């Protein structure tokens, strides 16, 4: 298709200018950048709360806070990181930017709904923060009944905020499903889609199927608090454990909303930096869908000791083990891809390798927790805290960081500083293990989670853990600086600095307003290196 005159200097960033043009934009790339800014801001807030938690736990006895204050800080850390950072992190930010480009489309299927979903996140977050003016919230991010029915008024606001943020997630998922089905470039069939798209597609199914259940559950919780309708309140004939069923019916699949996109990013990184056709493309693609499907049958593993029946516990324990199968398929295929590849150790690849290492530890410790007999001992200890941080931080955050460095040249047309980027990786990777590995030991020794104080025997390991946390903090701050420096002062990036094969590397850096100067036509798979 011949376009008359193409101005090669115009791109999505300088197409229009002014704050208003951003706040009203329908361009998926600009909306992606707006998500990036929002998510980074929330991450900074959640990170500050994390640092405060580790400061409080640095030594025995009260340090910074009273115990009710500690409970609020812990709740905010969890709620912010889960609902505002990790869930929107990859799909809404990197996914928004790259899903349409990788499909060869001009935009997502519903650009206005895309913008609306960003506003849902912002409004929902504002409502959550509003709760701070109403005595804060101390339920933890899970809002378990019966406590959440009786505690402070702030809970209603946080729950309402999470409800609104849920719509952001649903709308993004809806948009991605429609985009994948309807807007693929000529020649782009399902088996030519990049694995990042497969991962986002599986995630979108989860977002659309599971998130409404969270919404309904949170509404029921508010109705219970405000009107006392008696669904969860045992005094009124309700069942508090039922809340956990409803909550985890969403929140276990939500774990995969968090990790599947990360696996997608890692698939891209490993293929590109090994310069080798990815091993087991179909297996990786379908295992994403497999993980999504299995994730709906395992939620009861969060309830082994909370009053659920033994029969249900046994069934859920068994079903949970099934998740290991598609997950291991992915890990083995990634390793097989690296094997005999021409591996380049640029920063994004370092993060991908970090992901492989940390996520595997997180996954294997998950098996220990999925086994009822051992979970009875480990539940509600720091072992659980360490496990899910290995998955969420060691997995998802590693992938986000890797993805950001990988795609900065494409998003902003500029390179980051490789030297400093590697230093941030080392700080984050080392700091992470120093923080969370001791927590496995602490948990095994019986230190309970969620308390603001502990017995003196646990002090040495807690000190190590706190020092590690501050190392991560420094790492992320430098990392943020490297990103900002790249955006404003970085060297000009070529179109394809890494030799990637997917479509985003075949357009300008940064891409033009509608992504491609000429409509791409796809004739081969996404990773055909050699």
């Amino acid at each position, binding site marked *: 298709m011949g376009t008359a005159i193409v101005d090669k200097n115009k791109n999505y960033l300088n197409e229009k200018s002014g704050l208003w043009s951003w706040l009203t934009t329908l361009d998926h790339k600009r909306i992606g950048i707006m998500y990036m800014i929002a998510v980074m801001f929330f991450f900074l807030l959640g990170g500050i709360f994390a640092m405060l938690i580790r400061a409080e736990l640095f030594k025995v006895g009260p340090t910074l806070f009273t115990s009710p204050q500690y409970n609020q800080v812990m709740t905010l850390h969890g709620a912010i990181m889960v609902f505002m950072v990790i869930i929107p992190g990859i799909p809404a930010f990197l996914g928004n930017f790259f899903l349409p480009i990788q499909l060869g489309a001009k935009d997502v299927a519903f650009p206005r709904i895309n913008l609306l979903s960003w506003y849902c996140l912002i409004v929902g977050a504002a409502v959550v923060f509003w709760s701070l003016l109403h005595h804060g919230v101390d339920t933890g991010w899970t809002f378990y009944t019966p406590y959440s029915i009786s505690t402070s008024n702030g809970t209603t606001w946080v729950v309402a905020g999470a409800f609104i943020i849920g719509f952001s997630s649903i709308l993004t998922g809806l948009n991605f499903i429609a985009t994948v089905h309807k807007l693929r470039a000529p020649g782009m069939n399902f088996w030519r889609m990049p694995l990042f798209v497969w991962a986002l597609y599986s995630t979108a199914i989860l977002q659309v199927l599971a998130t409404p259940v969270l919404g309904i559950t949170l509404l029921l919780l508010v109705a219970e608090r405000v009107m006392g309708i008696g669904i969860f309140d045992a005094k009124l004939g309700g069942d508090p454990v039922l809340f956990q069923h409803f909550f985890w019916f969403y929140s276990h699949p939500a774990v995969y909303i968090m990790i599947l996109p990360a696996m997608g990013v890692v698939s891209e990184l490993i293929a590109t930096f090994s310069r080798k056709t990815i091993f087991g493309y179909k297996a990786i693609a379908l295992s994403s869908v497999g993980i999504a499907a299995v994730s709906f*049958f395992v939620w009861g593993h969060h309830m082994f000791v909370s009053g659920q029946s033994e029969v249900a516990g046994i069934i859920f324990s068994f079903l949970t083990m099934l998740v290991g199968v598609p997950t291991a398929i992915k890990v083995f295929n990634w390793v097989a891809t690296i094997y005999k590849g021409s591996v380049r150790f640029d920063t994004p690849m370092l993060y991908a390798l970090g992901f492989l290492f940390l996520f595997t530890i997180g996954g294997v410790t998950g098996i220990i927790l999925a086994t009822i007999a051992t979970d009875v001992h480990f539940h509600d200890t720091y072992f659980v805290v360490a496990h899910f941080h290995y998955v969420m931080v060691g997995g998802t955050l590693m992938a986000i960081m890797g993805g950001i460095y990988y795609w900065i040249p494409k998003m902003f047309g500029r390179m980051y500083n490789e030297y400093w980027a590697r230093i941030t990786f080392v700080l984050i990777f080392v700091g992470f293990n120093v923080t969370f590995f001791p927590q496995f030991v602490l948990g095994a020794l019986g230190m309970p989670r969620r308390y603001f104080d502990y017995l003196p025997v646990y002090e040495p390991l807690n000190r190590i853990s706190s020092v590690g946390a501050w190392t991560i903090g420094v790492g992320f701050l430098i990392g943020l600086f490297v990103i900002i420096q790249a955006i404003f002062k970085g060297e000009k990036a070529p179109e394809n600095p890494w030799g990637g094969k997917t479509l985003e590397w075949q357009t300008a850096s940064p891409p033009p307003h509608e992504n491609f100067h000429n409509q791409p036509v796809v004739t081969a798979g996404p990773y055909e290196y050699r």
Partner: protein
Amino acid sequence: MAFDRSDLDLFIPLTLFGRLEEVLLGSSNHHVIPFRVYLNILLILLLFTVVTVVVSRIDFGAANAFIAMFIASIKAGLVLLYFMHLKYDDKLFPTVFFISIFFLLVMFAFSHLDIITRVLENNIL
């Protein structure tokens, strides 16, 4: 009971408003359903609404909820098939619909499994 609320079923399709002509003349490339079909479905729904009301006055004991749900399901099914066009659309849409119903059933089934076995295990009733 919330199950037998009939107002949800009395959904008036766009064809009854000003766009009747446009739809009948087939200006869009969608499958055109004759007006008579809509009217018949509407009458059937109204009939079932009467049935719902009549049945609600008779006490079937434990079967009350099942009967109410059964009638409501038929009504919902008709609305989905005809008014929401699932009968005529691309196969993808019914697939999506049934997948979501399936996962809803999964949620109910496992939650109930827990509640029922909890009662049995603890001998409480």
